[in-house]
């Protein structure tokens, strides 16, 4: 069976967070782009977990090919990482993702999957850590007319059935559907494997397969954005913290409890 994993290259969210905390995030002249070249570019962490989910299916004895695909201008490094983790084929669709919206990206990925003759399972991260939108997997499901199951911590294949353990606000839920299906992976899946040095060395020489709008028989109009990002800025936080003094932890604690009781926050 064929498993397609869709991945996105993002700016390291921890680095962005760090710059924001220190008031040093720089937004470019276009008012949108985060321009600091010191921020590493990584594979979206949820997508890396989606690759891990695919590899665990293979480990469980499922005979499968794992194809990893990315829409982006220069995602070669993250695709080689995918290959080092164990992906069989890596594909790049070299388009600027900043000029596409979720619909455009999903249209391209769905066309890629159809072009491959379909996939039994499409795995995606639950959302991208940059825009946090999380709409592409559901849109791919609609375009492929496949069921979509979100926020998985575990995925199993049993014959033509896909069994997914979902992390819901009420606890874990187990659902089943027939393949082909689209499943999104959450961080609860656990830490992705780290590639061996040997695999990393081997992957370094790999050149990703190229797909284009033309090779996917798509017109520019079909992927034209319906929504456009026009501005990005740092959310401001008003600080008015009153610090509770005390020579010891017990003194601080009694002082705080006193304040909270006086304000009737606690009884």
């Amino acid at each position, binding site marked *: 069976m064929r498993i397609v994993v869709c991945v996105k290259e993002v700016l390291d*969210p921890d680095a*962005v*967070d760090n710059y924001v*905390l220190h008031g040093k*995030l720089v937004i470019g002249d276009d008012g949108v782009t985060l321009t600091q070249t010191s921020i590493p570019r990584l594979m979206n962490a949820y997508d890396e977990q989606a690759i891990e989910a695919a590899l665990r299916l293979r480990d469980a004895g499922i005979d499968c090919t794992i194809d990893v695909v990315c829409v982006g201008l220069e995602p070669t490094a993250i695709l080689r990482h995918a290959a080092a983790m164990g992906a069989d084929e890596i594909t790049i669709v070299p388009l600027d993702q900043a000029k596409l919206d*979720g*619909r455009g990206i*999903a249209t391209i990925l769905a066309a890629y999957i159809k072009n491959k003759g379909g996939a039994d399972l499409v795995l995606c991260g639950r959302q991208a850590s*940059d*825009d*946090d*939108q999380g*709409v592409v997997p*559901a*849109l791919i499901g*609609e375009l492929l007319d496949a*069921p*979509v199951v979100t*926020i998985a*911590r575990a995925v199993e294949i049993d014959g033509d059935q896909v*069994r997914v353990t979902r992390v819901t*606000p*009420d*606890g874990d*839920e*187990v*659902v*089943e*559907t*027939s393949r082909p299906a689209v499943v999104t992976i*959450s*961080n609860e899946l656990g830490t992705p494997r780290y590639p061996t040095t040997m695999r990393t060395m081997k992957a370094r020489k790999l050149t990703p397969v190229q797909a284009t709008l033309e090779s996917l028989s798509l017109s520019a109009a079909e992927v034209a*954005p*319906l*929504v*456009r*990002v*026009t501005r*990005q*800025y740092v*959310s401001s*936080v008003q*600080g008015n*913290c*009153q*610090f*509770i003094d005390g020579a*010891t*932890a*017990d003194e*601080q*604690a*009694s002082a*705080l*409890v006193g304040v*909270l*009781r006086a*304000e009737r*926050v*606690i009884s």
Partner: protein
Amino acid sequence: MADDALLFCSFDSGRDGLPAGAEEVLTLARSVASARGVDLDWLVVGPMPAGVAEAAAVHGVSHVDHVDDPRLGEFLPDVVVAAIAGYCARQQPASLFFSQTFDARLVAPRVAARLGVGVVMNVVDLLATGEGLVATTTAYGGDTRVEYEIAGHAVFGVAGESILPEPAASPGAATPRSIAVELSGTRERIRTVKKARSEGPRLEEAQIIVAGGRGLQEAENYRLVEDLAAALGGLAGASRPIVDDGWTDSSHQVGLTGKITRPVLYIAAGISGASQHMVGCTAAKTLVAINTDSDAAIFKYARYGIVGDCVEVLPALTRAVKGG
């Protein structure tokens, strides 16, 4: 019929007779409907929650449209998507609004795909500008705000935690209408094998939450968080890093990918204040932070702060609460 009406869609029974986040989303959608001079309608999919009629009137809703079917009794994603898409094919509303619940994160983009319109999630604000709309969303786990420009209609997932519900200046007619949508041809492709069992009280509804992070230093110190939570009659929460490390399970995780809480009191112990966590607790009425680093971001959000080691301060607080 105003075929350019804005539409709030709900498909959950929520709590206290209202779908989750209904009043916040209605407040936001009405501001756009007023700016445009168009109707705001409300589509209720499935069983009608008891408080809908009253809330609809208060929030200036023109029509309360009801699509019901025996198969809409519990949440079946394919059936719900088909019901909303079927309604839209018939009634031709303009933009659609969802309260961004766990299930709406899946339903909203699927409906957008069926309608062939754009979709924007995590919406915290929306402005009508001439012919278009500008949606403000959170990005990078809350570190930044991103504005999206939408030329025509779209589907919006509204994260209403920061929206203060306000009644309309004049009440709406809230005329009930029953809309028939043919669902017999829709096959649900997802089967629930094991239901999620919500055990005990939920963080989302807790009045008092004590949450711990990496500052607890080791897994067994999570007990200190639980002890203080118990002493205060509240619940224990956690930051994502310690959930990822297995110090407690994900049902305790607060933040963007965990629970969005709005308690009266939130005590953050050994939590640095990463945006991704703060998304889940900034709606707290009173936020208390305990951290060894006086420059930690959490103090920017906190009303009260203790600079100190939470491993010492938490048991001291438990003693102080019990002693009083």
